[in-house]
């Protein structure tokens, strides 16, 4: 069966921010220079070709974009300035939008106007519900918001709670459907899910260990940056800064979980572990975020020279969340009350929820798809990266 050439697909990926694909004449320099391209997982040229011709079936089934960490070496070496690195990033956005069953990811990536509109709409809704919960009819003791917000208190708490559960459940469903789609598509070339039966338990154990090692050390990202050696100091290289954001994220997640467990669950005012952990997580993450923002403004490297609206949005969200988080800490410690502190709390809470709802569908989805692709890659190629 011949693969169909579809110019519409090519157009769609180009809209997601691909480099100038018309410039590519397939010399293969990008693939030759890529420190991560190996064996069957050959990229970026092959991915570029699939996009150029609009070979949709091949493109959605390719795990290669997830094996790329965008060191930018290919873009720097491209004799035609076709920017293969940026095209790989566009391919990832395309894949995310194809895996996502809701269709929201594609819309958010393609249209900055929709992104802003959706953020505002969702924010308004969440703020509304949020206020409704915390004013008056709060079941669990003292309401954090004073009575001058009482105008919002007309929806029964139970209703909001149910809606919240439903949205959360739907969200989990969507995420798992996306993951399932990704796995199904990536396995297509190997014969579908049936291919998983070919591997032995030992293979799974090995691949799991390789993946755990990879997540803990980000070795491939390190390989990516050290060949050739980066001219930047280690503390601003992506491997380190990405690491600080990831670490901060994990620390904050643990802190929040501890808070939830002790304060809401056991009704104990126990902050001795969660508070320092949260502060440290917030600081570590803030460092990474500021380095990212600074580098994107400088545009000195191939991987920072192009900043899409989705990139700005993510950084904006994380930085605002981080800063308002610290502001709330100060406010609580000082015991300040007032509209300003209420607004800060509202913004922080609403954006945190929006963050979970929106970015799990888009940028943060890489945290699921990349490990999945790596796991399948390790399963398939035992000697990968050695």
């Amino acid at each position, binding site marked *: 069966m*011949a*693969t*169909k*050439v579809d*110019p519409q697909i090519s157009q769609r990926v180009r809209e997601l921010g691909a480099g*100038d694909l*018309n*410039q590519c*004449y*397939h010399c293969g320099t990008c693939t030759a220079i890529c420190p991560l391209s190996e064996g069957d997982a050959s990229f970026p040229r*092959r991915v570029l*070709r*699939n996009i*150029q*011709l609009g*070979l949709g079936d*091949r493109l959605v089934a390719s795990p290669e974009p997830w094996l790329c960490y965008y060191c930018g070496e290919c873009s720097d070496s491209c004799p035609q300035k076709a920017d293969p690195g940026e095209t790989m990033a566009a391919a990832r956005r395309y894949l995310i939008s194809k895996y996502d069953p809701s269709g929201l990811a594609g819309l958010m990536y393609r249209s900055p106007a929709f992104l802003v509109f959706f953020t505002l709409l969702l924010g308004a809704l969440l703020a509304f519900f949020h206020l409704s919960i915390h004013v008056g009819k709060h079941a669990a003791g003292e309401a954090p918001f004073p009575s001058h917000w009482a105008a919002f208190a007309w929806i029964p708490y139970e209703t909001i709670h149910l809606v919240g559960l439903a949205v959360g459940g739907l969200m989990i469903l969507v995420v798992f459907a996306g993951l399932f789609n990704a796995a199904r598509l990536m396995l297509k070339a190997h014969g579908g899910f049936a291919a998983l039966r070919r591997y032995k338990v030992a293979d799974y154990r090995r691949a799991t260990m390789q993946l755990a090692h990879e997540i803990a050390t980000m070795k491939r990202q390190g390989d990516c940056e050290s060949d050739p050696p980066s001219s930047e100091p280690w503390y601003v290289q992506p491997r380190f800064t990405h690491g600080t954001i990831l670490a901060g994220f994990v620390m904050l997640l643990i802190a929040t979980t501890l808070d939830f467990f002790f304060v809401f669950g056991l009704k104990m005012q126990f902050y001795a572990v969660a508070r320092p952990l949260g502060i440290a997580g917030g600081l570590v993450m803030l460092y990474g975020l500021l380095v990212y923002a600074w580098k994107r403004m400088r545009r000195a490297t191939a991987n920072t020279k192009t900043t899409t609206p989705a990139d700005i949005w993510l950084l904006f969200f994380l930085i605002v969340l981080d800063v308002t988080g610290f502001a709330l800490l100060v406010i609580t410690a000082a015991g300040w009350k007032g509209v300003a502190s209420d607004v800060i709390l509202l913004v922080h809470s609403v954006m945190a929820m929006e963050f979970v709802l929106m970015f799990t569908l888009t940028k943060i989805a890489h945290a699921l798809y990349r490990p999945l692709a790596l796991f399948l890659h390790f399963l398939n190629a035992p000697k990968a990266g050695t």
Partner: protein
Amino acid sequence: MTQKRRIGVYICHCGGNISDYVNVEKVADAVKGVPGVEVAKTHVFACSDASQQEMINEIKEQHLDGLVVASCSPKLHMFTFRGMAKRADLNPYQYIQVNLREQCSWAHTSDKIGATEKGIHLLRAGIAKCALTHPLNAIRVETKPRVLVIGAGVAGMRAAIMLADMGLAVYLVERENQPGGWARVTGEQGPEKQNGDQVVSALAERIRQHDNIMLYTGAEVVSKDGSIGDFTVALRLKGSETVSLNVGAIIVATGFAPYQPRAGEYGWGLPGVVSLADFRQLLSETKGRLEYQGKPVRSVAFIYCVGSRQTESETCPEPNAYCSRYCCSATTHTAGLLRQLDAKIHQYHLYRDVRTYGALEKLYEKARTDGALFLRWTPEKPPRVETKDGRLSVLVTDTLTGNEELEIGADLVVLATGMEPRQNEGLNSILKIPESTDGFYKEIHIKLRPVETVIDGVFVAGAAQGPKALAESVASALAAVAKTGGLLKKGFVDLEPLIAKVNPEKCTWCDKCLQACPYGAIKRIHTGEKEIALVIESLCKGEGACVPVCPHDAIEIEGYRDDQIMAMIDASLKEVATP
């Protein structure tokens, strides 16, 4: 030979090319005693100015009447030493070159003793031949200051104008009813964006105004007689009237024929499968939206190398092995025209190798960077064109996509057809220019003598000689002009006297030599009571096909006479004392 000869023998070291393997001093010693040899010496470089001057002095002082230089191949230095002989007042045809390098030292680098022995044999043969030479003079032919140009395409027209500007009279003959050839109908030419018919009109206007050019349209060459400098050509004009022309030279610029695909070749015959020429015609006629047979065109697939670079197969028993040169550039240029008309039309270019050489590379680059997609196929898996759901479908195995078969939906499939030699049986039998393996008129040497044919005075220009783009056609036409001008403006031409000679006493006219001669250089004449063969000196190449077929040994080639050859054999068979 009653009179004793005085022959000078010079053996060249050629640096060490010869002397490293052949003991040249021993060779010189060995021939010193040969009857007729007056001088036998060696030179480090016989071709150097100093050595030549030394030899000239010796020839003059010693009153030598024969010269043998044993050095490299005559292909390299025969004319050098002929010129040297001339300067020494020695008849250049009494000089013999012995090839001691290519045929001896280089061939026997591992056997120095054997090489030296062979050198002595070769040199003795050369001396024997030289002893039997006699003075010869070049055959001088007066040339007529008029030229026949066959074919009034751009090459022929351009040649005619330049020749006329030189002051030569030009007869320009065109079989069609108007001049211009293919350029008239190809539309815009890349990359200078001039329209073909405008180029043609401008040239035609200059021809009309030129006093020195006579243009015959609707006319054909029906016969050719005579030889270099003095041809008589008959033309048949419209209405079967004939004209006889007397010219000094002929330029053949009959152009090419477009390749006609076989039925089914890349879908040829299916609605929507067209040739590049047809597509360009469609483009030039389209204003606004591109449509084909009433249907809008959204996607066009171009297939390159149709009728070019073919390999032999069951369906293609006589493949065109050559590249047609113009198609890649013309097709990428067409991509630009199509984009200009409608940038939204998807373009797929199915190529084998893009050969947009030189500055034409820009056309390819523009097509590519403007968004045309290039897919590369190999002759093992050529593209297939089918009809599917009322639309054309092209299946191509793309080497740039891991040799995977891809399916392209297309509204039009354009075949970039190549050039073929024209089927001009009539003209071929008149001109007798040999054809290359590809069927085009063959030049003497593709690099060094690109517009001359083996028929002296007959030149070839443009695509008649092989596929050419317009610029190359004009360049070759101007090269033919230069050769023709050089020949005719001098007023005469000197030809080699080393040609066939008929012994009228032995000849009984059996016509075997006439049959054998590829140049038509044999003529039947009456002398007294008998008919014999006569060699037309200006046509004979001294090639020798007539000699072995003569039942009476009545023909000999000057320079290779029977007595010379026999003497050479005798001399070379003489035993050599082991060096």
